[in-house]
C-alpha cells in the first residue's frame, strides 16, 4: 500500500490553473468530479508524475512522483485516449509494461482472459474499447498501489462497465483507485474530490 498526498496542490499549464486541492488517501475509491476542462486529466497526469504541480505538493509515500522513478512504480495511469503504440500486440504490451514496472514475473494471463482480449490482437486493429481494456491491463501490470482511471468508463460497453465497477470495489480493498468521471458514476466510492478552475 502507498499513500497519495495532495497538499494545496494547484495543477495546470500556462493560461490555466485549478483551485488548490487537498487529499490524503492510501486505500479505497476516490471519485474525481468536475466539468469538462476543469483539470481532471491534468491532475491525474500530475499524480502519475508526468508534470509537477504549479503550487503545493503532490507526493507518493513522501516522494515526488515527477522526480522519483521509484515513486512512479507505485502509480499507474489509464489515459482517456489510448497511448500504446499500434505496432504492438496486446500480449507484448502487457509484458513490456510489466518489465518497465520492474515486475517481469507478473502474470497478466488471467486478467487478459477476464478482459476478453485476444493475446495476439495487434493494437492497430483493436477497437477503441479494446485499446482502453489493453491500457487497463498494462496499468495493472506489476500490481501498482495507486490506480488512476481517466474517464475509463466512457469507452466501455455496458457489460464491461459493470465488470469494471466490480473490480474497482475489489481493488479498493488493497489499493487506492482514483476515477475521473463525468455524470452519475456507475461505481461505489468512499471519497469525492471536486476540481474546478481558478477564477481570475
Amino acid at each position, binding site marked *: 500500500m502507498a499513500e497519495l498526498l495532495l497538499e494545496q496542490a494547484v495543477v495546470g499549464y500556462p493560461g490555466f490553473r485549478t483551485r488548490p486541492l487537498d487529499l490524503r488517501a492510501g486505500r479505497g475509491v476516490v471519485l474525481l468530479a468536475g466539468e469538462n476542462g476543469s483539470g481532471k486529466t491534468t491532475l491525474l497526469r500530475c499524480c502519475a508524475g508526468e508534470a509537477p504541480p504549479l503550487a503545493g505538493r503532490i507526493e507518493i509515500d513522501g516522494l515526488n512522483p515527477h522526480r522519483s522513478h521509484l515513486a512512479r512504480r507505485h502509480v499507474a495511469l489509464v489515459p482517456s485516449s489510448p497511448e500504446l503504440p499500434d505496432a504492438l500486440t496486446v500480449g507484448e504490451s502487457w509484458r*513490456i509494461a510489466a518489465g518497465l514496472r520492474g515486475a517481469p514475473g507478473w502474470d497478466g494471463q488471467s486478467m487478459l482472459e477476464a478482459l476478453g482480449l485476444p493475446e495476439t490482437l495487434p493494437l492497430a486493429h483493436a477497437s477503441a474499447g479494446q485499446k482502453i481494456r489493453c491500457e487497463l491491463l498494462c496499468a495493472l501490470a506489476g500490481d501498482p498501489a495507486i490506480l488512476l482511471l481517466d474517464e475509463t468508463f466512457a469507452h466501455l460497453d455496458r457489460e464491461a462497465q459493470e465488470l469494471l465497477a466490480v473490480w474497482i470495489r475489489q481493488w479498493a480493498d488493497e489499493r487506492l483507485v482514483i476515477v475521473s468521471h463525468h455524470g452519475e458514476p456507475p461505481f461505489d466510492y468512499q471519497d469525492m474530490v471536486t476540481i474546478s478552475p481558478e477564477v481570475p
Partner: protein
Amino acid sequence: MILSHSGLVSAYFRCMLRRSLPLLLFAYLGLLIILSQLDAVTDWGLLRQRLLTESTPLVGLLSTVLIALWALACSAGLRRIWQSREHRWLLRQPVSAMEFGTAWMIVATPALPPVLGWIWLTTPGSAGGATHGLAVLALSAGLMVVLALRQWLLGLAALALIFLADQAGLPGSLALLAALPWLLGGLGQRARTTLSSRQARFGFRLTPRGPISAAMLRDLLLAVRARALVGTVAMTVLSAAFLWALVNNGGLTGDSALLAATVLLAISVWPAYEGLERVQLRLSPAQRFPRHWPLSDLQRQAAVLGTALCLTIPGLLLLLMVSAGALGVTGSLHLLAATVCLACCIGLFLLLRELWYPNSSAVGVFLLTLITTTIVIALNPWSALAATLLFLGAGRVTMKQVTYG
C-alpha cells in the same frame, strides 16, 4: 477554399507520388553501380545495333527477365506506400476501380525511366515501336503495382503479357492498349481488396527482465515492424560494396587516403543513422518515453544507447571492415573499439535530435563529429575508447536536458 472530392483524391495521389521517389533510392543506387561497371566495357550504340538484329524471342525473353528483376527491386521499395494507414480514407472515397488502378500506376511512374531506356535499346524508332513501347511501359507500371501488392500470380500474368507484346508486334501491342481500361479496372479492384485486408503479425512472447530491456524491446519491435530497417540494411550493404570497390580499385591510396576513407565512411554511415532516426524519433520524446513511466534518466539513456548499439553495430562493423586498411584500423581489438565508438557517436546524436525535437538540425554537426571520430579511431584502440567514454558522458548530460512529457 473548399476542395472537391476529386481534388482531394488527386492531391492525395500527388502526395503518394512524391513519397514514392525516396523509396526507389536503393533500386536506383543499385542500378547506377551496375551501369557504372557496365559502362566501362560496353559500347551502347553497338549493343543497340546488335539487339535490333538479334532474334526476337531471345530479346523478348531477355527484356522480360530484366523488367521482372527491375520491377522486383522497385516493388520492394514501393511496398512501403501500401503500409500507410491513410489508405483507409481513400477506400471510402467515391473513386472507381479503374481510376484507382490508374492512380496507383501513376504512383509507380518514377520507376519507369530504366524501362524506357531498355525499350530505346531494343525497339526500332518507328510508329510500331512507339506503340509497342507504350504497351510495355503500361504493363511494367502495372507489374510493379501488383508485385508491390504481393500478387505474384498477377505478376506472372503481367510478365507473360510483356513477353507476348514483344512477340506479337504492332497488332498485339494495339490489342493490349485497347484492353488497358479493363486491366486497370481489375488492378484497381485487386488493390482495393489488398488494402482493405488485415494482415497478420508474427507473435512475440519474449519477456523483458527489467525496465531497460523492456524499453529496448519495445523500440526494437517498433523498429522491425516499421520495416525501416530493411532499406537501411540494404543501403549499408550497398555502401560497403561501394567502399570495397573504391579500396580495391586503388581509389584510397596515398597521403589523402585517411581523409578520403573518413569522408566516405561518414557518408556510408548515414543510412544506418537515418534508419535509426526514423525508428526512434518518429514520435516526440514525450510520446516515446512518457514521463509517467517508472524509468530513471539513466535507464532511459541506457535504453536509447542500447537500441542504437543493437541496431547499428552489425552494419558499422561491416563498413569498418571494408575500409579498415585505408583508415589505419589494425587488429580485431581496434576494429571492435572503433565500431563501439561509432555506435556511441550515433547514440549521442539520437539524443541530441531528441533535445532539439521537432526542430532537428543536427545533421551537419553529426557529420562533422563523425569525421572527427573516425580520425580519432584511426590513431589506436585507446583513443577510440576515450572517445566512447566522452560520448557516453555527453549523452548523460544531454539526457538530463531532454524533456520527457
